[in-house]
């Protein structure tokens, strides 16, 4: 039997035959709703008579203050019910392992080799305990130390902490370091403002705010670059620092970034470079050369660890030598023979995560970086940018789509597109196109709020996808955009093959309606 040519099956007469996707039609309830009193997953056997006789009532030794008054309000289910519950939930997903996942721009949804997951799942790592003596954990300390050296080379900065458990945690750590720096100089009261830009990742504004700073946001100039004149108007003796992303979420690289840093330095502030997504600049530009004082990398984006539904992550925080004394403790030190943990930083901002962060994520990132080597990391950036600009060219052939700002300039690793024209001509909105695309097994994300770019969609193809896969993605989006002109109803009533069709968005904007736990939900909507 000859080999099947998949490409032929997907394309006929040069026209793509689109893959139809059909999600499992579960509408799985919340696990608490599945609970029935008395159901059990595990029945713990009674303690043997002999053990009971010798040990006595072990619970009697617990102090009264440590005893719960009521049993915990956990759901009560049998084991197979739990297995079915989570299997069904996973089938309601359109995750990275299931689709050409280039529509989740800014998230750097690259393929994360499964072998790196296996390394991280190795019992030699899993069975470690953070309280073990450092002499017995030399291996993981070595991995952490070596990975720090890689990040130092990539950024040009001098020390890194791997403790922050997310990108936002890293930004928060950086803001704390900025404050500690000004405190050490007796200026922290006076310097109460942090500057950022509207197209920087919103976590920058949020973290500065959480840390108690007044946040000053710069809007783009007419060409879509952060407005240098606005920055000049913003800096003062109250400026603590600048938190900025480059390239911004539009995919546009700010060519005046060094000037930005100079102006803020001139006002006495520090500059922190949000490199959560460094996929387009690995081995090409560095924080050091633009004179940044701090930076951070999301290992769960650029470093393929992967982006796990808000799961285990690391936001590696890096600083120049003169700020190293403020880093979270402990740092990993190496004396040429042994690795040890250094807690002895008098000016440290303290801990920003428990123990040493998430070593399993560091193992995956280290394995990924080592498998590529320095040249390979640079090639990642090259392919990611090439993929993005290929996709950009193909996407712009679709009627109704455009890109705002920076005319004639290429984009770096992602693009924020605008369907403004299509929406005006058809009444179909960007969000609806993205939802309709899910019927073909892909989707896209629009943008952070507010939508500064009208009718936005943000695509980031990374280095993981082949030309065929990018073509398939474009063919799907082109098909959906054509439907918007010829049969808008089918787009507006999508998705047709998913469990949940449309949801009302506006309550998500209203904190008084939020409930992030089951208990809070019950409290807000009634029940017991």
């Amino acid at each position: 039997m000859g080999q099947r040519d998949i490409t032929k099956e997907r394309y006929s007469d040069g026209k793509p035959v689109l893959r139809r996707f059909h999600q499992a039609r579960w509408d799985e309830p919340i696990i608490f709703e599945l609970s029935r009193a008395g159901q059990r997953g595990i029945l713990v056997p009674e303690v043997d008579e002999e053990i009971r006789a010798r040990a006595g009532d072990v619970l009697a030794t617990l102090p009264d203050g440590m005893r719960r008054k009521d049993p915990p309000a956990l759901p009560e289910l049998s084991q197979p019910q739990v297995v079915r519950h989570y299997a069904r939930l996973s089938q309601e997903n359109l995750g990275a392992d299931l689709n050409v996942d280039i529509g989740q721009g800014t998230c750097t949804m690259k393929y994360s080799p499964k072998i790196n997951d296996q390394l991280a799942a190795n019992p030699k790592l899993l069975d470690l305990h953070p309280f073990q003596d450092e002499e017995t954990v030399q291996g993981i300390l070595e991995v952490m130390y070596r990975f720090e050296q890689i990040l130092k080379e990539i950024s040009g900065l001098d020390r890194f902490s791997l403790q922050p458990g997310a990108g936002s945690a890293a930004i928060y750590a950086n803001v704390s370091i900025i404050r500690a720096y000004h405190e050490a100089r007796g200026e922290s009261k006076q310097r109460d403002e942090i500057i950022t830009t509207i197209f920087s990742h919103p976590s920058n504004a949020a973290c500065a705010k959480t840390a108690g700073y007044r946040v000053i946001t710069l809007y783009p100039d007419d060409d879509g670059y952060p407005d240098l004149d606005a920055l000049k108007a913003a800096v003062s003796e109250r400026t603590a620092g600048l938190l900025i992303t480059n390239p911004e979420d539009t995919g546009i690289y700010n060519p005046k970034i060094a000037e930005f840093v100079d102006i803020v330095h001139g006002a006495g502030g520090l500059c922190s470079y949000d490199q959560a997504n460094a996929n387009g600049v690995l081995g090409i530009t560095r924080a050091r050369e633009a004179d940044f004082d701090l930076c951070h990398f999301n290992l769960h984006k650029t470093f393929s660890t992967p982006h796990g539904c808000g799961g285990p992550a690391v936001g590696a925080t890096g600083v120049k030598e003169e700020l190293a004394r403020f880093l979270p403790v402990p740092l990993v030190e190496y004396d040429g023979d042994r690795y040890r943990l250094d807690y002895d930083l008098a000016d440290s901002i303290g801990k920003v995560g428990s123990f040493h962060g998430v070593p399993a994520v560091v193992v995956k990132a280290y394995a990924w970086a080592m498998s590529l080597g320095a040249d390979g990391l640079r090639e990642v950036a090259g392919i990611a940018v090439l993929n993005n600009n290929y996709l950009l060219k193909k996407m712009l052939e679709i009627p109704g789509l455009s890109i705002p700002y920076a005319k004639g300039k290429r984009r770096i690793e992602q693009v924020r597109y605008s369907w403004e024209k299509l929406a005006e001509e058809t009444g179909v909105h960007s969000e609806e196109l993205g939802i309709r695309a899910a019927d073909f097994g892909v989707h896209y994300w629009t943008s952070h709020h507010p939508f500064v770019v009208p009718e936005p969609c943000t695509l980031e193809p990374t280095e993981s996808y082949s030309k065929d896969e990018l073509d398939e993605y474009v063919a799907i989006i082109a098909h959906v955009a054509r439907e918007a002109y010829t049969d808008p109803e089918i787009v507006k009533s999508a998705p047709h093959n998913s469990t949940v069709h449309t949801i009302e968005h506006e309550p998500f904007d209203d904190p008084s309606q939020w409930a992030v736990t089951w208990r809070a939900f019950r409290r807000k909507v009634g029940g017991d």
Partner: protein
Amino acid sequence: MTEAAGRCPKLGLIVNPVAGLGGRVGLKGSDGEEIQKRALELGAVPGAQGRAAQALERVSSIVNTDIITWPVEMGEDVAKRCGLDPTVVGSIEPGKTSAEDTRHAAAGMLQAGVDLLLFAGGDGTARDICGAVGSKVPVLGIPAGVKIHSAAFATTPLAAGDLASLYLQGRVSALREAEVIDIDEEALRRGDITVRLFGYLKVPFRTSLIQSLKSASGPGEKVAMQAIAATVVEVMEKGVLYIIGPGTTTREVMTGLGLGKTLVGVDVVEDGRIVASDANESQILSLIAGRRAVIVVTPIGGQGCIFGRGNQQISPEVIRRVGRENIIVVGTPGKLNTLAGRPLWVDTGDREVDGMLYGHYRVVTGYNEEAICRVSG
């Protein structure tokens, strides 16, 4: 109130038959009998019926409703054209309807207890409906007029149909206060633009379906306004007069102080107390004589004017005396976004004062949050 509540929802329909007449023939609006006559002479074709029909067809294809409407060209015709069997109330003189009829019809819908009032028209129609029903009943505009500056309109007739259906089905429950803005057509024909904030209508809200270019105040906006108000109240000083301009954002400042606000007027506050409500220029000038005063203003959504449109009481002389350094500009990120990158602007009627106001400002956008915005002419 809706299908979800287990009964057939009531939809009120009002068509302003002359809406949009003046647009294509270049008359910048359709207010007034004389203009409507001239528009027809110039070959204008009434388009409101068709646009209303598009929206109504969409609604009737999605949800079962009882339609309540006004006679002949004010809704009855459209409903019947869509194959519906409406309850027709009120009376008109066909071919000779006026703003008065719109106001009567709106009041009639309110009395009939409609769940949602859908109207086809422009800013003038929105103004008439707003005057008649205020925020007593949810309202949604089908864009059919020449001027569509108000935020009470859906983006297209089909979007109006979609949003009305979602609301009647109970799938959208959020309501927002939408600005009703009207431009003085007489002045516009002379080349002057005078924007007036007329009032607010309560409008169903779903981000992508509502006229987003002209400012919105959804649930998230409300929270942002409260955050702005908290910041302003925190920086208020004793013994200083605060001149509070019109708007929902500035109203939150007053609410934060436990005070009521003249929504489309200017109030003056000192030490947490109102010293003048709905003040005019001379009142303001006499209050601030020899005193330190601060102006709190918000840009008009979608346009970005901070002085000279809708707040002329804060005159060039008031601004000169208060001084640029004592102006607090407030606006939610959502509202700034409605400017689509355009700068804020001023047109006080006094070049020197305008010039003094140009340059970059810190606009309060949330609690301890500011944006740097440029003000131009």
